[in-house]
């Protein structure tokens, strides 16, 4: 019998949605392989009440660890300590960024196999098999583990959150952190660069990427969004947010927002997996890209191969005209 350990990322008193999905998934899988799902929380003064809420997603036990927040290596230390003291066959992480870093570090620490970008997990003969889409999602690899602990890092939004109404026993676990994990210190966390734009509630999103060429390129997106009017907004990729062209609050993807508008229109966006995971729920996907081989065309409903600088202004005029008609 083996239990499943889930890392539950929390920030400012709330658990990350992807962590909750991972807890739900682990509870389902644990039942199938005859074990329990346990969660581990690492933070400064996380209350047992908050930790205990993970019971509502299927965790039967929560290990509450006092330690630094937002950095991966202290969590590796904590999870390695939990694995040493318990009976765990698998560790599961929700998608994001820290989960990837912690999962990989834990694999090194435990000499364990790690599978990442996992979109589905199934139980087979008391063991877990993870499914990973590869080659731009054109094929799916099945991965199993031969190590004592198998590490599964999911893709963003891979697992559904299910409330069970259950409760969990909360235990505090004291961890001796390794000297090197103390060599990194968080100075500021979660800084919101740029204006507070709202993209989650929009019906129409005009998203811009590096292909806009410069910060000013976003004027083309703003103009088109204005032409659509109503509930429309402008969004962006990490590449342009990192470059300071657009506010972080408007970023779609793995370390940004997840959106599901009626219409998502991409201008100068390549369609990287880390972007796709945040917008593939859109009802209609339109992409303008000058490269006919851009990955975004693989998942667009309408793809326009061409120069956005030529197309966007004319499209804006045409949408305005249509609306006026």
């Amino acid at each position: 019998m083996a239990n499943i350990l889930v890392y539950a990322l929390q920030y400012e008193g709330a658990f990350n949605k992807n962590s909750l999905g991972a807890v739900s998934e682990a509870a389902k899988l644990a039942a199938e392989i005859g074990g329990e799902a346990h969660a581990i929380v690492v933070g400064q003064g996380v209350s047992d009440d908050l930790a205990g809420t993970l019971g509502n997603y299927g965790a039967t036990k929560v290990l509450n660890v006092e330690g630094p927040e937002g950095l991966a290596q202290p969590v590796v230390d904590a999870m390695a300590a939990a694995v040493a003291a318990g009976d765990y066959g698998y560790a599961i992480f929700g998608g994001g960024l820290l989960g990837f870093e912690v999962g990989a570090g834990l694999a090194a620490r435990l000499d364990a196999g790690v599978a990442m970008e996992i979109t589905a997990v199934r139980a087979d003969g008391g063991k877990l098999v993870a499914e990973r889409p590869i080659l731009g999602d054109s094929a799916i690899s099945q991965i199993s583990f031969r190590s004592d602990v198998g590490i599964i890092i999911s893709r963003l939004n891979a697992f559904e959150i299910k409330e069970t109404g259950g409760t969990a026993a909360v235990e505090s676990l004291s961890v001796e952190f390794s000297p090197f994990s103390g060599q990194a210190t968080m100075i500021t966390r979660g800084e919101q660069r740029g204006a507070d734009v709202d993209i989650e509630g929009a019906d129409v999103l005009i998203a811009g990427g590096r292909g806009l060429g410069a910060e000013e390129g976003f004027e083309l997106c703003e103009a088109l969004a204005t032409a659509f009017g109503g509930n429309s907004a402008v969004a962006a990729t990490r590449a342009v947010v990192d470059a300071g062209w657009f506010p972080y609050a408007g970023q779609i993807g793995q370390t940004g927002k997840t959106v599901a508008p009626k219409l998502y229109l991409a201008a100068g966006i390549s369609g990287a997996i880390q972007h796709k995971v945040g917008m593939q729920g859109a009802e209609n996907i339109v992409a303008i890209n000058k490269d006919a081989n851009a990955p975004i065309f693989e998942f667009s409903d309408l793809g326009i191969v061409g120069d956005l600088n030529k197309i966007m202004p004319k499209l804006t005029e045409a949408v305005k005209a249509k609306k006026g008609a």
Partner: protein
Amino acid sequence: MKICVLVKEVPDAAVQKKIDPSTGRMDRSGEKNLNPYDTHAIEAAMQLKESGAMAVDEVVAVTMGPDSAERALHKAVSLGADRSIHLADDSLAGSDVAATGYALSKVLEKEAPDLVLLGQQSDDGECYTIGAVVADHLEFPSLTQVIKIDVEGGTKLRAERQAEYGYDTVEINLPAVISVGDAINEPRYPSLKAIMGAKKKPLDKVSAADSGIDAAKVGGDNSAAQWTGSSEPPKKEAGRIIEDEDTAETVDQIVAWLDERKLI
């Protein structure tokens, strides 16, 4: 001080990538190139060296891969690395992420770098976790996806990166492992002279045994994550593609398409 930059040879972006159906491994034949994300790591090393922010004596490019991977090292050296190390051994073929990170860490251990830099991800395997694996083996602090590095007092870095709640600023004492995001810099192009001279710079070819790698921990058969099969994802209906030749006509087609779906 010494900076080691981990680099990788990947199939050229223009090459259609495919999987060998009998092993589940990437078919790595065909035209290859230095992973484009790695050029940002080399550039970051060069900027630390050239700005004098750190007293860098040496930038060393390190790779693991088959014989052809030598070309990725030549490219790395043409971009400024002083020398390079090629870990090549048949026993390493098919290693998973954990085994690859372990093997690279053994090479790095011998080099005793003050800073290990790498790119944000590999262009082929869509993997971005090697840095965390290497760091744990080396027992160095680490951070991935870093888009700004400032040196403080020569032995401490102040790094910025975007994580799931916004931008984090983290102070890290050296030695450390840092993967850099592609927004950190604009990599330079190698000069013709640098390209010509690249083959003359020292390139050490080392085996698994030379590096003290435990053979039982590497290679496809010994990797702890095992590929056991593959399947096809559910087919999505292919979208419609318009090649923009006459923009007025293109725009009419877009508007008609949107109108049919009541999106305007």
